[in-house]
């Protein structure tokens, strides 16, 4: 029989009718929608046990306490440690996305020599050769670590050790000049200060250990905790700190020093302070002219700040006039002022960008990216991330966030000594080496950072000073053995020294410092990485919250 077109149509109709009473159409509808809910090309988080580890953040020298969520061996979240004695659970915005930094596209994955890939052995050989031929300058951005000690020891034999100081430490250098006490052992006793006179310092915007001050301010400006705190922000523009400050005084930019001098003059002339000091040459009217305020305003300001003591002036950077104002206010070496937190007397040579007559310069990964040595020496730079191109012969991939076993000394602005250890929680996806490890591999006679940490813990234990803060607080004296102490530190506990005894510091301040002395330097970052966590930079961009990528040169 012949199969006509009509038959085909009818057959099709029958098939269609039949298909409706089979699972085919319905199952397809269901499964395709399920497919759209589980597209295979969309990454999903791994399944597996979740555990929480405690450590200290190493992205900048402030060493905030971090709580790291780990899933199947990888960090999946960062939060603050509420029990941390200094930062008390607060972190800077960048820390919350920091666990993604190690996967940043700009991560340095191989040794690079003049832009082309090289091996670690090449680098080692080149560096050894350089050491044989002349002086080596070792530059450190984060002094005080065991790793720094390694760098220092190496430098003693082969050249010299220099330190790049962050803005917060630089602000303390005048006291170093006047008293001989190294800037690194000064700090601010903010916990007891009552009036904070900030000369352009971003006190509410990531200054010092970001959590420490913002949290103090939040509690005490609201009067929840005594003493009540007032921030007087002296700044040309309405910055974040100025916006939230108790009072914002808008002056011409760069005239902070002049205003400090003006205030000091009023304080001294009107005998508003007990302490004496050299009267600045600048007259009140000159100060008014240069700052853009009027004389009465300056006089008013001087009077208001002494009403509610202790008062402390904080400079944004190395600004001797502001430091001198603190001397006049008697805020140096007193409770609620600039205090000496440690006994160390070692003064480091501060690194200048210009480095002459050296065969090689080696930079630790803690050196801010925007510190670019001006030198014709061979430059070896350790970095975990690759920033904007800079004159460097060797790029050496350093451990990223949470990848390095290191110790975390006291934060630059802290009023109390602290000591913490950061275990390596994340495994590096590729071969990395820290500067210290590299130097030890070049000169095996050096003792490794690991050993130094070990001895430091032993010393801490034998000194029997201070307390260990983990979930609860225990006096060092009560801890069984040095080993126990070290174990606890590795598992995220923090050692906290006794609060600074208000020992007065003699500042030999003969005459008022020249206004232009100690101009702020061109590198500002304490955040060493040239990149920001992708989420942070993205969200800042999308929210328009920060015009430029903050802390990122």
């Amino acid at each position, binding site marked *: 029989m012949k199969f006509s077109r*009509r038959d085909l149509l009818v057959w099709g109709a029958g098939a269609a009718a039949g298909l409706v009473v089979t699972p085919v159409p319905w199952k397809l*509808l269901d499964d*395709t*929608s399920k*497919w*759209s809910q589980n597209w295979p090309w969309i990454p999903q988080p791994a399944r597996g046990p979740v555990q929480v580890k405690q450590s200290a953040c190493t992205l900048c020298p402030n060493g905030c306490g971090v709580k790291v969520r780990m899933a199947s061996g990888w960090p999946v979240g960062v939060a603050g440690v509420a029990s941390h004695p200094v930062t008390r659970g607060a972190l800077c915005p960048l820390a919350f996305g920091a666990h993604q930094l190690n996967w940043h596209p700009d991560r340095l994955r191989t040794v690079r020599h003049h832009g082309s890939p090289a091996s670690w052995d090449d680098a080692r050989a080149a560096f050894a050769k350089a050491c044989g031929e002349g002086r080596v300058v070792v530059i450190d951005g984060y002094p005080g670590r065991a790793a720094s000690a390694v760098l220092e020891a190496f430098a003693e034999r082969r050249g010299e050790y220099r330190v790049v100081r962050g803005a917060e430490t630089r602000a303390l250098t005048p006291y170093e000049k006047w008293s001989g006490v190294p800037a690194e052992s000064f700090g601010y006793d903010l916990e007891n200060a009552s009036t904070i006179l900030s000369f352009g310092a971003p006190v509410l915007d990531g200054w010092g250990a970001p959590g420490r001050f913002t949290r103090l301010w939040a509690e005490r400006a609201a009067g929840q905790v005594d003493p009540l705190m007032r921030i007087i922000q002296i700044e040309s523009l309405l910055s974040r700190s100025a916006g939230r400050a108790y009072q914002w005084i808008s002056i011409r930019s760069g005239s902070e020093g002049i205003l400090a001098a003006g205030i000091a003059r009023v304080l001294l002339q009107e005998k508003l302070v007990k302490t004496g000091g050299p009267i600045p040459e600048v007259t009140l009217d000159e100060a008014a002219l240069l700052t853009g305020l009027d004389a009465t305003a300056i006089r008013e300001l001087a009077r208001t700040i002494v009403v509610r003591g202790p008062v402390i002036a904080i400079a944004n950077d190395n600004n001797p006039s502001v430091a001198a104002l603190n001397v006049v206010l008697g805020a140096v070496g007193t409770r609620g002022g600039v205090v000496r937190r440690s006994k160390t007397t070692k003064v480091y040579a501060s690194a200048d960008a210009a480095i002459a007559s050296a065969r090689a310069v080696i930079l630790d990964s803690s050196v801010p990216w925007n510190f670019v040595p001006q030198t014709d020496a061979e430059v070896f730079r350790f970095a975990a991330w690759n920033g904007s191109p800079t004159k460097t012969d060797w790029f050496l991939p350093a451990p990223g966030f949470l990848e390095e076993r290191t110790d975390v000394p006291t934060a630059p602005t802290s009023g109390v000594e602290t000591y913490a250890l950061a275990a390596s929680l994340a495994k590096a996806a590729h071969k990395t080496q820290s500067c210290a490890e590299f130097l030890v591999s070049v000169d095996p006679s050096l003792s490794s950072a690991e050993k130094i940490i070990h001895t430091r813990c032993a010393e801490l234990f034998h000194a029997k000073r201070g307390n260990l803060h983990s979930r609860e607080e225990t006096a060092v004296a009560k801890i069984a053995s040095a080993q126990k102490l070290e174990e606890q530190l590795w598992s995220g506990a923090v050692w906290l020294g006794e609060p600074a005894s208000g020992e007065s510091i003699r500042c030999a301040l003969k005459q008022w410092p020249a206004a232009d002395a100690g101009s702020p330097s061109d590198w500002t970052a304490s955040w060493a990485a040239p990149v920001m966590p992708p989420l942070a930079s993205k969200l800042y961009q999308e929210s328009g919250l920060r015009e430029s990528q903050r802390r990122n040169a």
Partner: protein
Amino acid sequence: MSSAALADGRWIARGEERVSLPRFLAWLSPWVVVLAIGVYAAGLCLYYGLNQTNMDNRFAFGLWIFLDLGIIALGAGAFFTGFLVYILKRAELRPILNTAVVVGFICYSGAVAILGIDVGQPLRFWFTFWHPNTHSMLTEVTFCITCYLTVLCLEYIPIVLRNRQLRKLPSFLVFEHQLHKLVPVLAGVGTLLSFFHQGSLGGLYGVLRGRPFAFRQGVFIWPSTFFLFILSAIATGPSFLMLVTATVESVTGRRLVSNDVFRRLGLISGVLLGIYVAAKSIDTLIWLNRTSPSEGFAAWQYYIYKPFGTPVLFAEIVLFGLLPAFLLTFRRTAERRGWLLSGAALACCGILMNRFVMTVQTLALPTLPFDEFLRYTPSWQEIASFGGVIAYGVIVYSLSYRYLPLFPKSGGENSHVSGN
């Protein structure tokens, strides 16, 4: 020339005069190109997702929603004519009945096609039927439009089956006859459905408590826009039919329907438009003085942003409302083709403008005090798919006109149409 001479003559209704196939194809080809581009653009949107459009989190609806609301409103002529002819027994409107059905079918299928691209996860369309949220106006819209599109198909099929060749298949003829008996019922059902979704489309925005510019107080369970949309749709539907028919007449250079059909349509359109304008004005006053202030939004706030100043409101109500209402109603203007058609055109512009204001202006205006006024320009993909739908419409209509008996020809072909 006689249809027999044409290459596709045997498909064309006996005795109908049609242009030669080449000329017809020449007419189609540009539209086919536009359609092709549209399909390609739509493909991009489906494959890469809606990042192909210029919509964003704040301008979550764009050109497409305006298109949907617009053409569905213009397509209202379909159900309304059916309603007039079958329910109200206005036999004199039969001549444009088929055109109405085709136009309706084009508008609704076009709108549904665009909706298919506009949603982010088209594969999940059936969730709306499986897990419906009965509170949502959009559910109501989806249900009604789907059902009504089916109705339109059922109304369209008999017209298709009346094609000269297809009628040769006996079973089809039988089917067509059966189906045709159904048409009055369908018209009734269609009317009901259409009333609902035209309204729901208005409700869509009227219920947006969070968008004080669109939010309206309720009448019964529906916001006033529900009824305004129905009114405006049935008012302009006939006008659009007039425009379509007139266009076809001018293109083909042939008289298709008698003048009094036009006159009748114009009258219906005009009167309803008048009623609509009155209702709309009252609603606007209530909204400006009661609804909006009660939500904390002063009326002036809506009209300080250019280009959406008060002229827009004026144009919508007077220029595109009152004026065409007069043109369409009064003998002295309505008698003249020119005035009649320009009135119809104005009416159509009016409804499009209203839909534009409801969709686009609503989203452009700020709600939070620290929001800013937003702008948005469609991407070429959006515009292309828009054009694609228009082209699709033209093509389907042209084919229908060429091969199907849309308009009564003296005697013969439209004998079923007049149902005797």
